């Protein structure tokens, strides 16, 4: 396990996190390599989001460290974030700006893949909404815009917190398809979910 963790692209070693007095996880290890998917399962409030946030470097762990390319991410936050795209529960778009304005702003925050915007929007079924302000979009449609951000970013590592929330059945299968495709192109995915997830990619599961 140790050897594997040292050579992995992304690894967590002896992670422990407390929220208040409650221990969310203790001594947790994981190792993730390109082409793999890590699924975090657990009840509501079991600490899936906290673990994701800790891996992304948004909260400090009690013990342990997360390493990217064998180097702790705390020492190379920028390099790590360069490879990361984060889909959180709150989509992170401005309600008063249009879909296009929001995505244009995103493009200056992180490296962009050479994908055609129109094509991505069409695939996600939000192409005709592009000039509407975000507040006019339904929760599921906003979720799809967040998926567009993910596809447009040139990031190896996708971190998804409950990616299928608010999505219809077709949207859910689209997410699974996108994740499988990303993994097939040597991408890495960490996903927190409480629904059943069916993927055609090598998958590890952590139960919290």
């Amino acid at each position, binding site marked *: 396990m140790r050897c594997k963790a040292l050579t992995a692209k992304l690894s967590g070693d002896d992670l422990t996190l407390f929220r208040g007095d409650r221990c969310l996880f203790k001594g947790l290890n994981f190792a993730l390599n390109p082409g793999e998917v890590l699924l975090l399962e657990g009840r509501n409030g079991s600490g899936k989001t906290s673990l994701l946030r800790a891996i*992304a*470097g*948004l*909260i*400090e762990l009690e013990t342990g460290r997360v390493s990217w390319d064998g180097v702790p991410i705390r020492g190379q936050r*920028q*390099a790590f*974030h*360069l*490879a*990361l795209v*984060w889909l*959180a*529960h*709150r*989509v*992170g*778009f*401005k*309600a*008063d*700006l249009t879909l296009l*304005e929001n995505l244009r*702003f*995103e*493009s*200056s*925050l*992180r*490296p*962009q893949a050479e994908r055609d915007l129109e094509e991505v929007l069409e695939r996600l079924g939000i192409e005709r909404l592009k000039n509407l302000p975000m507040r006019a979009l339904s929760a599921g449609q906003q979720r799809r815009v967040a998926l567009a951000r993910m596809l447009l970013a*040139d990031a*190896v590592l996708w971190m998804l917190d409950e990616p299928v929330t608010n999505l219809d059945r077709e949207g859910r299968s689209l997410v699974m398809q996108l994740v499988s495709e990303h993994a097939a192109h040597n991408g890495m995915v960490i996903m927190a979910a409480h629904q059943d997830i069916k993927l055609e990619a090598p998958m590890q599961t952590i139960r919290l």
Partner: protein
Amino acid sequence: MMDQQRQMPGIWAGMVAVARRDLLLVLKRPGDVLNPLFFFAMVATLFPLAVGPSVEQLEFSGPGVLWVAALLAMLLSLNSLFTSDFEDGSLEQMLVSSLPLSALAFGKAAAHWLSSGLPLVIVSPLVAMTFRMPVAVVGVLMLTLLLGTLSLSLLGSIGAALTVGLHRGTALLSLLVLPLSMPVLIFGARTVSLAAAGDTAAGGLYFLAAYTVLIMSIAPFATAAALRISNE
């Protein structure tokens, strides 16, 4: 190998993008900017009415009143600097972006200054008229406000970042920002008073400029650190 090829977006471009986005939001909701501006104009115009029309008194109290009104107007608008970004999750997106957070924080403070500080400077001559301020002194007033509001925007961004996760952080924000903004208030108001008395204003302006540069070089980093703490 892939990592090296990946093009990082420019820091300057990121800063400009944040500022542009915030200004675009202001354009779509102009009410947020007009509020502090109204506050400034109202306080400063009500004062002469309450004090009375004595020219001597007005000339004496003018600089102080204008400066206090400007300071409070800035504080009023600082409150919401990070709140909406925090609530809709875009702050989190900035935290995990590959750009230095301090650059993005500077962009936000710059947009705040452009949308709250600069309008104050622009309307200040109108308000100064009610205090019978001579034209030459109005020029000094505008200069001090220009430098002062800039440092207040930057100082306030630290306080706003520290209180972003708290509900009703207004009182705390004022408590945090006011002590640091005292030099701005004292030198700002005194410089204008001195100019009105016929003295040279250069010393005070130099101090304000130096203080602004100092704050400008510290505040973005302090704001970035505060944002990371507030987001835990």
